[in-house]
């Protein structure tokens, strides 16, 4: 207990607490917290998943290799990489996929949002709010919730399989579109199941909305895509809650990456000096609330969210609002489906520079490639969402630890883990397990 520790400290002035690896995240990272005289002196969220050097190993490869290679950055959100790289290459080659191809891509992306959001919210994050180790224990106390979640997650994966050919690392996508357009007879029946999926997402959202959310608010700088007509997923302009509104190829002008000693992930920084910024579900929700469907907005309101969410622990609710939206949107796309003919637009290899940016479940994922005359990659830059969020995660941890110093070490450690899981951090993306080291001096 902290009280005991404080009493002990009076004599010795220092206490070190080591906590083991953080679970229920994708990848490997660590957290260290140093507390002295009741004040947090230092917080480091370290990512030590070993680097894999994607930007380097892409050099010399043909433009057409980039989507499948970069998909291997993350097995949870491969579509974000497939799409981001494809868009960037299409920009570099001057290709414009047809409306039918774009609609099929959006359907595929909805599948990824559904499977990734439900995996994270129901199976990885919800146990935190119930004080449980994992969803398997949750299945013993509330089997219906877990079964609903598994069924919904499976629906997301089925979209990935039907449209993409495989749930993890789909094979049917390519620069310009698809290898083969699925027939209407396999896509259209998805609509009814997706409507049922929307009901399931709504049920889960209402359950999660009833959780006891830790008291913490932050005025986030929210960065996301924005599209005037739809809730931005795979298409839109880059906007921020501070008023930025630029085409996606303006990303590198406004944002950069910094390398810090304690992490194998580069930290996202805003070039205007405005400090950490937030990407992901809350950023999207705050920037694009008006573009949500009426039913998704109604779920948000019923689950206790206003038009702007400032409590990161409520991200679990936002994920289900987005899941509901993705089910409705995918149902609409399935009903309106017309197989793209041809399945892909073809282009000639040429020199060029192209940007691509889409909303991965965890936030904007940016790609930039420079090609030579033969269409080979000369330079590649990839900015995944978790590295952009890393400074904001550290800022949230500081705020959460400061407010919760009264908790004993075990409870505080769990609260820190939960704070990190608010971000659904894909550490494999950001490079890269979490150990928590707590030093009370």
């Amino acid at each position, binding site marked *: 207990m902290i009280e005991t520790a404080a009493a002990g400290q009076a004599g010795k002035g220092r206490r070190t607490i080591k906590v083991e690896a953080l*679970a*229920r995240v994708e990848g490997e990272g660590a957290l260290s917290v140093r507390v002295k005289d009741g004040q947090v002196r230092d917080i480091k969220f370290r990512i030590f*998943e070993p*680097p894999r050097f994607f930007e380097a190993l892409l050099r*010399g490869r043909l433009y057409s290799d980039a989507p499948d290679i970069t998909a291997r950055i*993350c*097995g949870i959100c491969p579509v974000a990489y497939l799409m981001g790289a494809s868009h960037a290459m299409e920009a570099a080659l001057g290709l414009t996929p047809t409306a039918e191809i774009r609609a099929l891509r959006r359907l595929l992306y909805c599948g990824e949002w559904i499977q990734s959001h439900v995996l994270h919210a129901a199976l990885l994050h919800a146990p935190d709010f119930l004080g449980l180790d994992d969803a398997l224990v949750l299945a013993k106390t509330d089997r219906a919730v877990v079964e609903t979640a598994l069924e919904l997650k499976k629906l997301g994966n089925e979209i990935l399989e039907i449209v993409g050919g495989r749930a*993890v690392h789909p094979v049917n996508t390519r620069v310009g579109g*698809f290898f083969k357009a699925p027939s209407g007879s396999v896509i259209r029946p998805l609509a009814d199941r997706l409507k049922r999926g929307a009901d399931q997402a709504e049920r889960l959202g209402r359950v999660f909305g009833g959780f006891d959310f830790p008291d913490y608010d932050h005025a986030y700088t929210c960065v996301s895509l924005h599209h005037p007509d739809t809730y931005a997923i795979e298409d839109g302009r880059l906007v921020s809650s501070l008023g930025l509104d630029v085409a996606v190829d303006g990303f590198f002008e406004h944002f950069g990456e910094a390398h810090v000693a304690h992490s194998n992930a580069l930290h996202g920084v805003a070039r205007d000096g405005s400090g950490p910024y937030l990407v992901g579900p809350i950023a999207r929700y705050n920037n694009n609330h008006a573009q949500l469907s009426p039913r998704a907005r109604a779920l948000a309101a019923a689950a206790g969210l206003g038009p702007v969410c400032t409590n990161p622990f409520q991200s679990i609710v936002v994920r289900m609002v987005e899941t509901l939206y993705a089910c409705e949107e995918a149902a609409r796309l399935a009903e309106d489906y017309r197989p793209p003919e041809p399945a892909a637009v073809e282009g000639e290899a040429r020199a060029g520079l192209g940007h691509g940016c889409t909303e991965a479940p965890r936030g904007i994922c940016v790609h930039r490639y420079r090609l030579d005359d033969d269409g080979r990659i000369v330079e590649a830059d990839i900015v995944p969402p978790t590295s952009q969020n890393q400074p904001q995660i550290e800022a949230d941890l500081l705020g959460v630890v400061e407010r919760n110093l009264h908790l004993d070490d075990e409870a505080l450690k769990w609260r820190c883990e939960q704070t990190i899981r608010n971000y659904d951090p894909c550490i494999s993306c950001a490079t890269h397990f979490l150990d928590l080291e707590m030093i009370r001096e």
Partner: protein
Amino acid sequence: MARSAPHDAKPDGDRRAPKRPKLAVWKFSSCDGCQLSLLDCEDELLAVAEAVEIAYFLEATRARIRGPYDVSLVEGSITTPDDIRRIQKIRGQSRLLVTIGACATAGGIQALRNFARIHDFVTAVYPTPHYIETLATSTPIHDYVPVDLELRGCPIDKHQLLELLSALLNGRAPVLPTHAVCVECKMRGVPCVAVAKGAPCLGPVTQAGCGALCPAVGRACYGCFGPQESPNCSALAATLKAGGLERRQIAHAFRSFNAGAEAFRRESEVHD
């Protein structure tokens, strides 16, 4: 590790059945997609969790039960000095060690570094290279410790994973084909993309297990399950050359997610 006495019944009913095998899932350098395949068994997950004791699976649970483990599933490749120490410790704690996926069985896409100078790679990605600790190579688990079984694929096929777990639970050998993807195309009735379209398909030299997913969408197999048991890579390379692929394209065809697999590595070096 302290053991509870057999009759030390706990009021919460959470006492373990005596003979459930302990399953651990470990991660090295990887994308997490292969271990995700276990969570993607939505219809079977709760049954699997009842049949085995999930003793260590960081992606899914905070709960950790100390070894030894009956089965360890290992995802990812060895890329740091610490990885080598960790895999040796895991081997020592595991009755059966099964590698899952192209990273663990062949070094993964990150094994492309094995063909380059690591310093060039580090400086290409990180502005402050001395912050990074890494080995010059990305190599499979079997380079460091004995491996009992391997599941191929980038990612693995979840049906093969379930077959593996089912076989292990029932004390039999898993049925895992070692023939070529071509056989799967014939079994599914998928038209040959190499013959019909002249596509640069790696199906003849690639191990089956995916269900011929790429040819089924009219795409050339890109070899994500690695080399089949007796691959004739040089004959395939000659066919690719005759089909108009230039040297570098042939090298790159063999040099992707299983670039570190012996047969693919050697063939790619012929055309480098």
